[in-house]
């Protein structure tokens, strides 16, 4: 993954709480091979009407919003289903950072594995940002090194898990990291077989049914 140090570009206000992953990408699109791109599915059923026309006034349909790099939303962004396709939709659309007061746990892990920065801000800062962005996307800068958000002459700080921050800043891949722990894993398995002999499934028995 490409290291991520800062995200600069238009920030789009999405003044909604509980934007669950079913909204970020409706289930029916997840059969699509990733190579075809998931950006067009982002928030599909909120962004487009039954005929497939853009819903007037929806934030991502505002002039200039197509180029958004940052989304600002209310609490519990990305809750619900574990579908990583929700992150694919954001990333393929061009979003590299979501700012919100809180995120679903699984969403945060998925974001970290796809170079998307989940930046946690206070409720009051979030409301302030939404107010300042109201009506139109504006240029913003999110700096992961300093954990700051800059909008015009204003600066806000954000929170992020330190491990996730390092991972994003270095563009690490977990499988490569874990490969270095082969000895520890092997030692664990030897010890564990003694400590928890019931943990590995044997051959199935006839069973009750």
């Amino acid at each position, binding site marked *: 993954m490409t290291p991520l140090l800062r995200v600069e570009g238009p920030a789009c206000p999405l*003044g*909604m*709480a*509980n934007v*669950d992953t*079913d*909204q970020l990408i409706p*289930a029916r699109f*997840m*059969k699509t091979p*990733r190579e075809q791109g998931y950006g067009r599915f982002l928030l599909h*059923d*909120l962004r487009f009407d039954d005929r497939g026309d853009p819903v007037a006034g929806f934030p991502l349909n505002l002039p200039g919003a197509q180029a958004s790099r940052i989304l600002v939303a*209310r*609490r*519990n962004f990305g*809750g*619900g*289903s*574990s579908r*990583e*396709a929700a*992150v694919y939709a954001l990333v393929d659309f061009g979003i590299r950072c979501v700012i919100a007061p*809180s995120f*679903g*746990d*699984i969403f945060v*892990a*998925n974001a970290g*594995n796809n170079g998307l920065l989940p930046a946690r801000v206070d409720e009051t800062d979030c*409301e302030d940002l939404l107010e300042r962005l109201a009506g139109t996307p504006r240029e913003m800068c999110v700096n992961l090194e300093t954990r700051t958000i800059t909008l015009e002459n204003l600066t806000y700080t954000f929170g992020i*898990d*330190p*491990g996730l921050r*390092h*991972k994003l800043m270095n563009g*690490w891949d*977990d*499988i490569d*990291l*874990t*490969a*270095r*722990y082969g000895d*520890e*894993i092997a030692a*664990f*398995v030897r*010890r*564990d077989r003694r400590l928890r*002999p*019931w*943990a590995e*499934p*044997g051959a*199935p*028995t006839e*069973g*009750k*049914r």
Partner: protein
Amino acid sequence: MACITSNTKFCLSVNPAAVDGMSPRTLFDKVWHSHEIVHGEEGGSLLWVDRHFVHEGSFHAFDRLAQRESPVARPDLTFAVADHYVPTRNRSDGIADPEIRSVVDRLYRNTRRHGIRLFGLEDPRQGIVHVLGPEQGLTLPGLLTVCGDSHTSTHGAFGGVAFGIGASEVAHVLATQTLWQRKPRRMRMTITGSLAPGSTAKDIALTWISRLGADGARGYAIEYAGDTVTSLSMEGRMTLCNLSIEGGARCGMVAPDAVTFDYLRGRPWAPSGDAFDRACQAWRALATDAEAEFDREVTLDAGDIVPTVTWGTSPEDALPVDGRLPDPTRARDSATAEHIADALSYMGLRPGQRITDITIDRVFIGSCTNARIEDLEAAASILRGRRSRVPGMVSPGSTLVKRQAEARGLDVVFRSAGLDWVDSGCSMCVAMNGDLLPPGERCASTTNRNFKGRQGPGGRTHLMSPVMVAAAAVTGHLSDVRPLLPDRETA
């Protein structure tokens, strides 16, 4: 979460299993620590995974594995289930939709290539992964179980740590049988007293989520405790743990006890004979120590829990069935007002409307939340000898549950009521397999999510227990099940 800050590895500490018994610990602590291979300095731990369930939707993860040309580290600990995309009718005709067929085919190909056991469409044990795992004895106390599905929290009902993961994490587990995780905080939810007739585990869950919020337990591992919980069957405990994620929790768990052991004894993959008895001894020791501390304590009185339904577009939008819909003009803040107004508009409802005045178009009984044999029995107890006023379908949690229900004549009850009795799968809970709620229709559903479009674009979902869905079916509107209960029978 990765803990490394350079190209070398450091920040190791010894597996804390070696220091067992030093200080009082919770059930969660004990299970977590017994799986910790590496403890990172930034709080991330490398954990061993005992059971990894995959399904059709896991194809993104298999693709990642293929890109790296990586083998599956432990196919013997990996179990595949066809549930999300499978049709629930006319299976012998194959899958008509080419896109859906291709996703199911990929699971067959990927599992064959890597030597992973698959419970496929033709398997008599096929079912929803979170029903099948426990049913087969693959789910046990003290295990760490993951799956690329958020309702993996269900398996915690047996006293293990179980949680949903994303596709990249699925690929990581396939490649290494381990996972980086930051340890969640610990919450104990103590529920005491007797549940009144008509109130169920579903109502407990909807009640706490409505009080704490859909992110009220975010960052926590919940241990459900108290006499209300220990009195629940395994089915009830699974419903409770299943819905942990709807309150934002990382996982939910219940300490293993005699109810757990009775359920597991004789299951195909559970230990057998003396090994089972020895395992039970070890499992008993997992219970939270008397002096152990939690980061947060929440208490609920079962006597306050009444039949509950959701009215909006988040599981936190839940109210007792005798309530009235909220009014955005009386909300505590503008964000809440916006949410209420938006949810009412999507759901086609009015502020102040009586919940029991909401008429429905359809019912659905199914999903990993409420499609086990006890759930079907409960719904049938209300439908027996009655007709549903609306169309609907019943999709059992597994093919074994289906056979069990048929042996008890429940299929006849559902069919006589006018409902469709179909095959097992995620069905209309995920709307990705052909079963879906038509736009604008309103469904009383035993599922777990009332998100916009969850059961189909434009569909309107009201979540409730199986008996409450049955009550809605026979009256044609959201209804209090209590007057319809058979004599004094607790559903």
